[in-house]
């Protein structure tokens, strides 16, 4: 039996507004508990909400970036349930008339392919506070600083068919919100949170299987693992003749398994209804068009431009535009050294490997864009070879300064002096009678290959610093003269 996994994601993105969605309290992360919870956030009696325009602008920008319909009339509703981190006893959210309607986004897969994922809708809502479970006299402590922070909840259609696709979609969302500057997208701080609806069905089946909802998966890696392990669990049950229970499950990263959250299952009936304290938000076409004009260049457009302007391959362009910082890094390097292809190779090659090893982002890179450009400039003008360049790169990482400093200090300058190279070539030819003999007797077509030996010897003699193009040229001239 061949199974197909069906995934839909609900992504919550905290918007980086200064103040909360319905109050003038600060949204700054990391303040002392409850110092940023004002009377409105605490649901003190008689207090009333007034929505933040910036949150609407951000939500609309997101919608435009997702090629989605923007609602000219949106309505806040109350979602009723009791929980200590929800002071009003209801969450103010949108249901029937969300700010962002249906849309579509293209995701890029590791095999180089791409596919479209449909957006069901995205809505604005307020975040809840936090329950701290450390022991306070056997009780839980409630911090309401986060209560009221604006979120957009982004709901996809169940269009993804593998954990890898889900991750690619999530990366795309991450890349869009950070490009737009509407969120810091930091999953470790909870600025971007992901719930996944997972079901499986036999390939060819049209009807969707019963789904489970995986809550709060807080890294790209865990999204992939959680979906895989949940799909496997479901397949095992079905293959054993069992059935899937529709429920909410939690991913346990330590054990790499999902488990049921039965405590959340108590018959929920959220009793949504339009919030009577808030009026319909009505937007004009001009307002939306103005925001469209102000949109920054988005990843897909940027990737296309990188291909046409810098002659990059689709793959390189895509790699470099996944996040705004990488793209900016690339453009800075390019501008400074004028070598897009080399810049792309270095950023997606050496630099990416380095960042991966150190588990840091490009914004924290120990090699600045200017430093990398300096290095590439020296490769281009033949001061150093690509091989030596790797040494210089390592040294920059270690904080030894610019490429020029290091080349100078370590004496790594490429030997491009014709006389010096001729001398080295002569010495190697003189010491390699047998090889020279073989070369002379070999067939014309095999000779270029045989030159490798001589080049290697000469590079060795020059400690890698001889200019390889010059070696090749002089060596060929001298060997051919012996024919």
């Amino acid at each position, binding site marked *: 039996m061949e199974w197909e996994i069906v995934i839909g994601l609900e992504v919550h993105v905290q918007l980086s507004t200064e103040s909360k969605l319905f109050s003038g309290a600060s949204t700054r992360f990391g303040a002392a508990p409850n110092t940023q919870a004002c009377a409105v956030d605490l649901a003190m*009696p008689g207090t009333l909400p*007034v929505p933040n325009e910036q949150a609407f602008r951000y939500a609309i920008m997101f919608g435009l970036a997702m090629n989605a319909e923007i609602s000219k009339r949106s309505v806040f509703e109350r979602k009723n349930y009791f929980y200590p981190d929800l002071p009003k006893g209801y969450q103010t959210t949108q249901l029937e008339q969300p700010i962002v309607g249906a849309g579509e986004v293209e995701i890029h897969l590791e095999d180089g392919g791409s596919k479209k994922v449909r957006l069901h809708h995205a809505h604005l809502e307020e975040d809840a506070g936090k329950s701290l479970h450390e022991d306070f006299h056997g009780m839980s402590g409630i911090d309401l600083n986060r209560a009221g922070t604006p979120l957009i909840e982004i709901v996809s259609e169940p269009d993804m068919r593998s954990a890898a696709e889900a991750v690619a979609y999530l990366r795309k969302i991450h890349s869009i919100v950070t490009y737009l500057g509407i969120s810091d997208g930091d999953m470790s701080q909870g600025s971007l949170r992901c719930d996944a609806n997972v079901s499986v069905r036999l390939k060819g089946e049209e009807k969707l299987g019963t789904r489970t909802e995986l809550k709060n998966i807080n890294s790209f890696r865990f999204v992939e693992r959680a979906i895989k392990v949940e799909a496997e669990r479901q397949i095992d049950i079905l293959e054993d003749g069992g059935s899937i229970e529709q429920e909410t499950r939690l991913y346990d990263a330590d054990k790499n398994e999902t488990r049921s959250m039965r405590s959340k299952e108590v018959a929920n009936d959220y009793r949504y209804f339009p919030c009577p304290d808030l009026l319909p938000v009505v937007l004009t076409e001009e307002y939306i068009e103005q925001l469209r004009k102000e949109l920054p260049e988005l990843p897909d457009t940027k990737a296309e431009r990188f291909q046409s302007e810098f002659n990059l391959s689709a793959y390189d362009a895509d790699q470099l535009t996944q996040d705004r910082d990488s793209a900016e890094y690339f453009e800075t390097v390019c501008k400074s050294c004028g070598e897009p292809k080399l810049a792309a190779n270095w950023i997606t090659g050496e630099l990416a490997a380095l960042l991966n090893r150190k588990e840091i982002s490009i914004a924290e890179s120990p090699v600045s864009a200017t430093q990398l450009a300096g290095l590439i400039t020296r490769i281009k003008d033949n001061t150093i070879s690509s091989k030596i360049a790797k040494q210089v790169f390592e040294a920059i990482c270690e904080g030894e300064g610019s490429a020029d400093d290091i080349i100078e200090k370590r004496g790594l300058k490429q030997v491009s002096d014709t006389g010096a190279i001729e001398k080295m070539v002569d010495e190697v030819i003189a010491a390699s009678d047998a090889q020279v003999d073989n070369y002379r007797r070999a067939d014309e077509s095999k000779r270029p290959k045989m030159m490798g030996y001589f080049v290697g010897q000469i590079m060795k003699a020059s400690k890698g610093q001889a200019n390889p193009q010059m070696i090749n040229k002089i060596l060929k001239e001298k060997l051919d003269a012996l024919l």
Partner: protein
Amino acid sequence: MHQFTIAEIIRGLRGKEFSSTELTQHLLKRIQQLDSNYNSFITVTEELALNQAKAADERLAAGEAPALCGVPIAHKDIVCTKGIRTSCASKMLDNFIPPYNATIVENLNSAGTVTLGKTNMDEFAMGSSNESSYYGAVKNPWDTNYVPGGSSGGSAAAVAALLVPGATATDTGGSIRQPAALTNTTGLKPTYGRVSRWGIVAYASSLDQAGPIARNAEDVAYLLSAMASHDSKDSTSLDRPQADYTARLNDSVTGLKVGVPKEYFGEGLDGDTAVRVQDALKEFEKLGAELVDISLPHTELAIPAYYVIAPAEASANLSRFDGVRYGHRCEQPSDLRDLYMRSRGEGFGEEVQRRILVGTYALSAGYYDAYYNKAQQVRRLIKQDFMQAFEKVDVIMGPTTPSPAFQLGAKSADPVAMYLEDIYTIATNLAGLPGMSIPCGLVNNMPVGLQITGNYLDEARMLNIAHQYQQVTDWHKASAV
């Protein structure tokens, strides 16, 4: 001195006939001596009142007195007052002292009023008899065996008993107009959004509106001028300029078209009450107004629609009272659920619990369309009735209540009978229109109110009409004490 109207107090203070301190001391003493008969106050703020009166006297002496400088008033105990307990007449908020003022309190403070205290009410403004208060029923100063109406029964009774010349109140389905009618006072519920709701504990957000209760239309105009404002903290507050509601009181009412809805004079209206209301209408004819028969065909659906919409909104509005951040918490909760269940079970009285349960029902899965949505559709039909009527008439008049005050306990076992008290007032809230009640006679020495409903933002015209009526009649001067 306690017989002075607000207009007289303003003149007396400026004419140095008496000081605000003297007046305040007099009224505080009167409250102390008499209010045990009426139970109209939950909290008396003696120290604050005397401080405010002293400050008012200084400003009066310095000649820089704002409009209501030194005028003593009281606030309904649903209106948040900084540093003063605001209980909503509920055990739930028995210990709640807000660290902020409602906008109307800020506005009245700026106008110079002196706060004598907080008035009793039906718990969370849910009731029409003032019997659901945690602090005990309020008694009607006209006969203490009778209810004063509700939910603003404390404000109305305090004004009627001459303990205070005016008070703030709120009206969600008739809670200003019905007690005003039953206590022979004048009360006005403004257009929805005219007065800020910030700091007024919400019962049903799309219906709640605060307004004044006083002894006559002129005094109501003074208070409303200070209370009404655009408030950026209330999303439903109307962006309209401040108004002086006393400016047009003396306009003529000649040519005024008064709509008389046939539905307000049908079955259910007490015969003697009908006669008093008809007499008042004749008085308006004498003043040059023209009576026009109109119909508001969906009138009888107003109560059913209200008892879906108001409880639905209330069920969510009152979820914040959970024993976590303020208010009543049960002893020794065994777990989170127990904390919620018992804190709310103990903190809310029967009527509040009932309305929360009804609202929960109306919003719950499978019932939303049949109840909540249907009620909001009917609400639109009710509004359309009024809009059609206002194409033909300037104001609508009729009885405020079906009969004069009933005896304490008479309807407390039967909530539905109690709900029918508001049959003539509730539609106004559903449509968001301004409405007022003015005294128009007595039946067996108990007061009867005439209801005037105006078009949106027509408060100045309504007050003018009421004032003109009060120039030629003395009903509003009849006193309970």
